[in-house]
């Protein structure tokens, strides 16, 4: 049995919105990272689906660019979290609200 591209796109959209809502709802910074990764991977899934539909290898190549970028982001992100953690020993995003107004 074969699924039409729509299903895959639907799944990707679903994963994307889960990631987005997750970032809005959750407090912990690490969980937020994961949500961003989810959204990026949803984009990858969409790329692959369209590559297959359009029968164009380019789409699949793009996935690797996105993966590389995601990895770089995580490395830098964790670094920043560690510096903040050393200072305030908390990873809850809400504690960091001294800059406002």
């Amino acid at each position, binding site marked *: 049995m074969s699924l039409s591209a729509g299903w895959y796109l639907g799944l990707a959209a679903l994963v994307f919105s889960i990631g987005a809502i997750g970032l809005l709802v959750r407090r912990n*910074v690490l969980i937020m990272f994961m949500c961003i990764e989810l959204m990026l991977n949803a*984009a990858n899934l969409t790329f692959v689906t369209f590559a297959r539909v359009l029968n164009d290898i380019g789409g699949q190549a793009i996935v690797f660019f996105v993966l590389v*970028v995601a990895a770089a982001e995580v490395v830098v992100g964790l670094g920043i*979290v560690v510096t903040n953690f050393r200072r305030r020993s908390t990873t809850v*995003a809400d504690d*960091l609200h001294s*800059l406002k107004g």
Partner: protein
Amino acid sequence: MIGALLAASAPTVSSAADRIPIPSIRYLSIMPPIIMIGGAVLLLGLASLVSRPLRVRVSTIGSVIISGSALGVAIWQWTDVQSHGAHTYIAHAVVMDGFSVLVTMLIAIAMLLTALVADGYLTREGISGAEFHVLALVSAAGAMLMGLANDLIIIFLGLEILSIALYVLTAFNHRRAASGEAALKYFILGGFSSAIFVYGIALTYGATGSTNLTQIADYLSKNVVLTNGLLLAGLALMLVGFAFKVAAVPFHMWTPDVYEGAPTPVTGFMAAVAKAGAFAALLRVLFSSLGVITSDWQPIVYALAVLSLVLGAVVALRQRDVKRMLAYSSINHAGFILLGVEAGTSRGVSASLYYLFAYMFMTIGSFAIVTVLGREGDSDHDLTRYRGLAQRQPLLALCFAVLLLAQAGVPFTTGLWAKLEVVLATVSAGAVPLGVIAMVSAAVAAFFYLRVAVLMYASKPEVTGETGESGDEGARPPACPDPGAQIGWATPQAASGTVTTLNAELLLAGEEAAPSGEAEPTVVRVPALTGVSIGLCVAATVVFGIIPAPLVDFANRATLLFLGH
């Protein structure tokens, strides 16, 4: 140079059948980013060889040379474009036209100026090492990439290189708590918007079958897409990514906190380079590829512009911290540049480019001065610290006044020509009300620029109501209005009640010294290189203001290779 290395090592494997076609690469077209990144790597290595105290000075000189050479190559590119015309290179992924060359020049100059400012900052804060310059060079390269990209993915890559380097730069000064917090906020929100941006690209790729801007344009012009829901969704998500980076309202929330938290030279760099790169990419995407559906995205840009103009000006009024005030003023400037984008014509493009160029000088100069006045620990940014600056350091105060008034759009500064060009572009596109809103917001913005000037040129704080010594001599009884014929409801005192509170609030007469407890702000030593950078910015703002012809022509000839509709 790398290509040559690879070619040398591969002859043993090659056979006629399985030769992999490599797209012909015209290195001139992408030379500036290569110089920047290559230079950064070299600088990293070189700096580690030098002894610790000299490292900052060496890396400053290095980055000045690198950005200088990038600028030189850009000028060479300009002559090439003018003679041989604009083309796309490296399998149409990159384009070299007047537009991209100008963006490259802009970013190279910004990098050069920031390097000069950073030198003074780093020595003052006691941070050794070349990391700052390396990261700055890399992010500048990312911005250049965005400028010359003709492919959505290249734009995305440029965006990410730019952003990730900036996240680290924001967290650079680990002694300041705010710096860490700002970096974290910037990272989370940046990641979020990049993810949205990528998803947008994916949808656009799905709708148009390619991520190459020219091919998208061909696709759209050939077949009239009845239900292009997919394309519009993709466009919407991409606009979110761009709007976030450009700090247009409602995606601006990060700007004030990050600008305040980040080390001041980084803020200046970020304000100039990030905006330049993002706007370049936005202009190219909207004008070159999505020119056909202008009627769809024009209202969005209209709305973004209005919101940014109004909110940027209005909220800045209430700021007591100079960096946060300049952050909101940069949102206001983003609104102005969006005016040029909204026009959708080639005049709009050249207007936005001119505005970016002028804005770069003004913002880097302003933040350089704020860096100097921030003193040790880079935290002394409360407005009350600026009172009486003109008496203590007249030249610095005059420079800051000129830069602020230029941002307000005072004649014979590039600020005015920028606003004039942008408003002319949008008025010519028929959006006269937008022009009016823009200029009214400029008038409102003028208030908080002026307020800083008032403070700098005000003398002793009139807390006790006795008059300052400047301007009037001899014993002076305060000439309060004589009550004269008074009718109950109309006493002059009551009438002028509101006015005196406004007057006091203007001069912040209420507050005494800033929370940092320093009784009287002392004279601040301006490091030589920072002085040079400030001087360059002020000179550029005033000279190009009085003689606008060269810069206006240059921006006008920096046209896009392909203009959609």
